[in-house]
């Protein structure tokens, strides 16, 4: 709300200054300046980030590249969340829900953007997920076969035992 106030005030300020100066043309605004406060955003927790990506993806619209990138990042964030929940790995069921969500997102990404430039990274992460779930009795055989098949296509997943943090697209 604080930010909205700031942006609203900036707009009003420019408009008020324009009126006060008797601005008649676009060029008359040149003397004005909008207030700029350089600095980072307020810290945001991971749940809010995931929620923001989900809200974007729910719209089911937009540039395919943006959607693919959002799918990838959300899947990565789900995996990170699963890792965080699992902690030291003593709780077998922990993080399962997030892992399944990540798998669904990766699969959706593979279906929607098979030529995604980071497809190798996606397949690698999917492979890691499959390893996580392979060890669990809840994984169905069909899903496992599919994941093995997908993982086999990956040329850049020699190290299936370790998950690496996927970078944000810059």
């Amino acid at each position: 709300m604080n930010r909205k106030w700031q942006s609203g005030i900036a707009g009003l300020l420019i408009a008020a200054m324009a009126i006060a100066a008797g601005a008649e043309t676009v060029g008359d605004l040149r003397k004005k300046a909008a207030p700029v406060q350089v600095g980072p955003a307020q810290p945001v927790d991971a749940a809010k980030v995931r929620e923001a990506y989900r809200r974007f993806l729910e719209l089911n619209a937009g540039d395919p590249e943006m959607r693919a990138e959002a799918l990838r990042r959300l899947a990565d964030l789900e995996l990170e969340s699963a890792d965080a929940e699992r902690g030291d790995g003593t709780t077998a069921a922990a993080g399962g829900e997030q892992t399944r969500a990540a798998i669904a997102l990766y699969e959706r990404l593979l279906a929607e953007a098979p030529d995604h430039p980071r497809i190798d990274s996606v397949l690698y992460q999917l492979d890691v997920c499959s390893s996580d779930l392979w060890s669990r009795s809840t994984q169905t055989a069909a899903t496992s076969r599919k994941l093995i098949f997908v993982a086999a296509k990956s040329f850049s997943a020699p190290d299936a035992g370790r998950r690496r943090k996927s970078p944000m697209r810059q």
Partner: protein
Amino acid sequence: MASRLNIVLAVLAAWAAPVAGSATADDSVPVATAPELGAARINTLDPAGLPAVKIQDLHYGDVLFHFYARDHFEALVRLSAYREQRHLNPHARDAELLRGGLYLSLGQHREARETFERLLADTTTPGQVRDRAWFYLGKVLYATGHFDQSERALRAVSGGLQIELESERRLLIAQGLMYRGQFDAAIAELDGWQGPDNWTAYGRFNLGVALVRANRAERGHAMLEQVGLLQTTDPELRSLRDKANLALGYALLQAGQPVAARTALDRVRLEGPQANKALLGAGWADAAGGDYQQALVPWVELHGRDLLDAAVQESYLAVPYAYAELSAIGQAVGYYEQAIEAYDAERIRIEESIAAIRAGRLLTAALAADRGARSDWFAQLTSLPDAPESRYLYHLLAGHEFQEGLKSYRSLESMAQNLDGWSTSLGAFSDMLGARASAFAGKLPAADRRLAMVDVADINRRRDELRAQLEAALRDRDTTALATEAERQWLAMLAGVDAELAAHAGDTSFDEAREKARLTRGVLTWNLDAVWKTRVWQAQRAMRELDAVVYDARTRHAGAVKARKGTPERAAALAVRVDAVSPRVTGLAVRVAATKEAQGRRLADIAINELEEQRRRLDEYSVQARYAIATIYDRASSGAP
């Protein structure tokens, strides 16, 4: 984020790209570089454009009265009725030309076209009328998007047009060529052309646009700059100047000259229909030069304006984009959040409006707001109540298709009212005829009695006798014929005295009496002779007056007799006409009502399509804002810069 500038520049390029459009669907024409004929000039029938005419027929004068009062519908109704009754013969061709023009002004293009074609098919139509008919036919064809035929009609004019119409003819030809993508031909038509000041400015603007579209950018820019630097207080030319600067600004942006683009866009007025696009373009010109701090100023100004405008919607993304580029991430987040909130709220409002339109409330609001005859009615739409049915009227009416559609709906409404009025009048005529027949029957016996008392033949005979007597007196100079009653008594007495004296002829005792009688007769004769001329003049005057009275009596009598015989027949004939017209009026009213309903549905469809298009655009922007904010959160969460 970095792709935003490219996306928007692509949009701007699309606006400025040479695209052929239809004159009847102006929304499809790129706004910034669409040819311009002057909104105040096209499709109007300017009373000043009528040549001076000496009215030889009252009915044509009546038509012109309504025409000059700008009540075109009433003028057309009367013109058509008088034409059918063959009242307009002295002005037949002018009336036809006017009829076609009235149809054109009411958007009845087919009827207008047929009227002008009929005039042109008549080989006896004089040259001047033919020229105007060709001109208006060209206008009709242009308005309906038949640019080839329009050009042929406009070129058939043989030079007999007034300067204003001639200027418009030239621009219509050029504009038609531009709509067909024949920019070189349009350039040839306009290059070096000089008309009245206002028309020349429009010509230069169109020439500039044609040159840019023909890839002769340098000359095109120079021509647009000429119009963009016009010094004028004329509102119409100031509006054209804004358009020229906007077109020039976007053309220069497209040509990769942001600094020059900014200079052109700087000249656009802040309060005008081009202002929002100019503010958006000015920001992008600054951004293209990397000056995001300066770009923020026009964009933030734009940000406070009506969100239904596409440029304003764009600014809701452009402002946070600039803040992000300036590393003011906190402010960028604030503006993105505001954008999402605003887009969502606007989408809800649009949905409410669509529901209101589907419920049929749009036209009620449109007609309530539109007082047609008021010149400022469109401007007043900006202050309409913020109700779902009226909220977007201003924007809808800015669209050519909706405006034309509403014009037709208004015409149908006028027709319905007119027919309703006639329906009521015909009922009243029937009642009136009944009342008159009853009154006639009631008065007939008394009238017959009075007519029977008058013997016109006897009056004529008595008048003729008097005339004969007067003529005889004049011929014989019979002064006694004009004697007064007293004089006649004197003359009679003298005759008696003479007779008595004759009985005593030779008796000298009567000599004195004889002398007195002679003297008396002499005096009487003298007096009669003295007043003879006066009495002749008086008698002749009295005879003339008598003639007039007798003629009047005879005429009245003949009229009364004729009325006695003709009134029932005329009343019966009128009743037949009323009875014949009534079903025609009823039938037309049914057709008009059905057409009006269909037109209402069409308008609702246009409005809903337009609002859905708005909603789609908002959705697209909303998607971009949500993605942008997700990525910013992501960076903030991961500690990335």
